[in-house]
């Protein structure tokens, strides 16, 4: 087969994207504290030791709490915003939606520093609550983007048809509205949860004495001996993110198909 320049470019591009990431799981099974080739044999001891590490478990638990709260709150806010943007016409709608989506492109470090200044000025102490607030700010635009593609295809006459066929507003919500938008909402929950789980900068600035998992990983990087643990942890985070985002995308596509819209506006 002839080597075509674009094909070569694509292979190099993909390698650049994914080879470094692949080193993570490879070295996490390496039977040596030093991260270097050649590999010294396969072991799962780093995973085992990680599991018995209380500090790590505490950080994991913190991340799950923050992620869960972020997912629920930002999806609720996202539902409200997406519904307003797709169903109603109001003054300033375009600039409003642009402003809501802006955090997508704002440098995270700016957001983190500003939040830190504001929270301290307001007299908040740093805790998991402040991390959650920061994560909600970052996750809402993603939630809106997912839900808009879901709601845009939602035909209002479906709800009218249900009323027309004798169902009240309550039954209509459960028999028509919810089944059609549920996959989109689930997709938003998973994406926002993943964003929170992986987020470092905001968590680093706002977490105080309770680290989330990425903050914990960063703190461990100072100890060379602990590097294999970090690799093991990183591999698991990678796997979890991959699974969550895949499920989210499947859900989003199903939602878009149900609502009769095209497969546009996806994130993943």
């Amino acid at each position: 087969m002839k080597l075509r320049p674009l094909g070569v470019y694509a292979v190099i591009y993909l390698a650049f994207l994914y080879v470094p990431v692949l080193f993570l799981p490879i070295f996490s099974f390496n039977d040596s504290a030093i991260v270097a080739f050649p590999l010294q044999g396969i072991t799962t001891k780093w995973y085992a030791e990680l599991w018995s590490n209380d500090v790590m478990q505490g950080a994991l638990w913190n991340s799950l709490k923050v992620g869960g709260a972020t997912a629920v709150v930002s999806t609720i806010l996202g539902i409200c915003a997406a519904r307003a943007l797709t169903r109603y016409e109001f003054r300033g709608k375009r600039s409003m939606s642009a402003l809501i989506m802006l955090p997508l492109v704002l440098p995270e470090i700016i957001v983190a520093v500003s939040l830190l200044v504001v929270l301290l000025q307001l007299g908040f102490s740093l805790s998991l609550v402040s991390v959650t607030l920061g994560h909600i700010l970052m996750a809402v635009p993603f939630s809106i983007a997912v839900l808009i593609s879901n709601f845009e295809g939602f035909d209002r006459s479906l709800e009218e048809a249900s009323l027309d066929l004798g169902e009240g507003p309550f039954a209509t919500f459960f028999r028509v509205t919810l089944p059609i938008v549920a996959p989109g909402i689930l997709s938003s929950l998973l994406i926002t949860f993943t964003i929170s789980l992986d987020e470092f900068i905001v968590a680093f600035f706002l977490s105080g004495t309770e680290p989330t998992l990425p903050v914990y990983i960063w703190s461990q990087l100072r100890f060379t001996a602990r590097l294999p643990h970090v690799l093991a942890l990183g591999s698991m985070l990678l796997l979890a993110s991959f699974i969550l985002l895949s499920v989210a995308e499947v859900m989003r596509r199903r939602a878009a198909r149900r609502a009769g819209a095209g497969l546009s506006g996806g994130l993943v």
Partner: protein
Amino acid sequence: MNEKTIIEIDRVTRRFGDFAALDDVSMLIREGEFFSLLGPSGCGKTTLLRLIAGFDEPTSGAISIDGQSMVGVPPNRRPTNMVFQNYAIFPHLTVEENVAYGLRRQRLGREEKARRVQEALEQVDLEHLGKRRSNEISGGQRQRVALARALIMRPRVLLLDEPLSALDKKLREQMQVELRRLQRQVGITFILVTHDQEEALTMSDRIAVMFNGQIAQCDRPEEIYQHPRSRAVAEFIGGMNFLDAVLLGQSEDSIEVEVAGLGRATVKKPAGTVFNGSALTVGARPERMTLLIDENGGYNRVVAGKVVEASYYGDMTYYSIAIESVEKPVVVSMRNTIGRRSPEPGEAVEIGWGPESLVPLT
């Protein structure tokens, strides 16, 4: 068809801000009739349908169905069902589940329910598609699902919002016949909203022509076509020549006019109408006049003209004929039957007409 009134619309007005979508509309719809609301977009026909269905409430006035006032009654408690313009088929349900949707509240046994669904699907020739998902069927089939889903509720009145506008011409014509057959078969009152005059003429028992939130004329299709009351109605439905005329005198049911280019005639008018002033417009349908080619078929009223243009439509040809002292050419249509010679543009011809060719317009 009986004469019992099923829907009474009593001085209904619906305002959106300053704009009156419906302006003091009153009418009666009879039980079992196929009634059409016909008009251009924005005339208020869909607004009226939605008021009857209960999706909207009138600003003033009242609607009653079967003698019961519908003020404040939500759509789920009205004896009406609707076929939506886009059909509003539930995308997450199968064809069967869509059709059975409204039966849940009726607490039927499983067998009774299955039987009714099967019956409804057979009624619209979809019995073989019950298990399909609703995104796996064609536009025409979606429309049938919407019909079955509404008819299974056994409504007193079925409301249809432009149900055929999304179908192509062939399918539309086929569905017109089928809808009419279905309506006769089930005996339910149908109210059809449409902007397609042909559709309204072929399907309806009666038509209400609407403009600007008001009813311009409400009558049987033949009456609407042959005796439009106003120039607006005549213009909206079919082709019409408009001719200036001078009013010479009027009696109880006719008027004496001098029509520009044609001459004097005594024309029937609707009983009770009075024409004021001395000038008026009379209308003449292209097919209510004839071209006298090569021979005079015994017409005693003949006017000379010259062919300006001939438009060929297959079964018919429409000739534009210039007549002296008439500003716009008069259009006359002729069937393309065997043996008829078609006059060429520029050829001198004669138009045969009579008093019955003309309608006085307000």
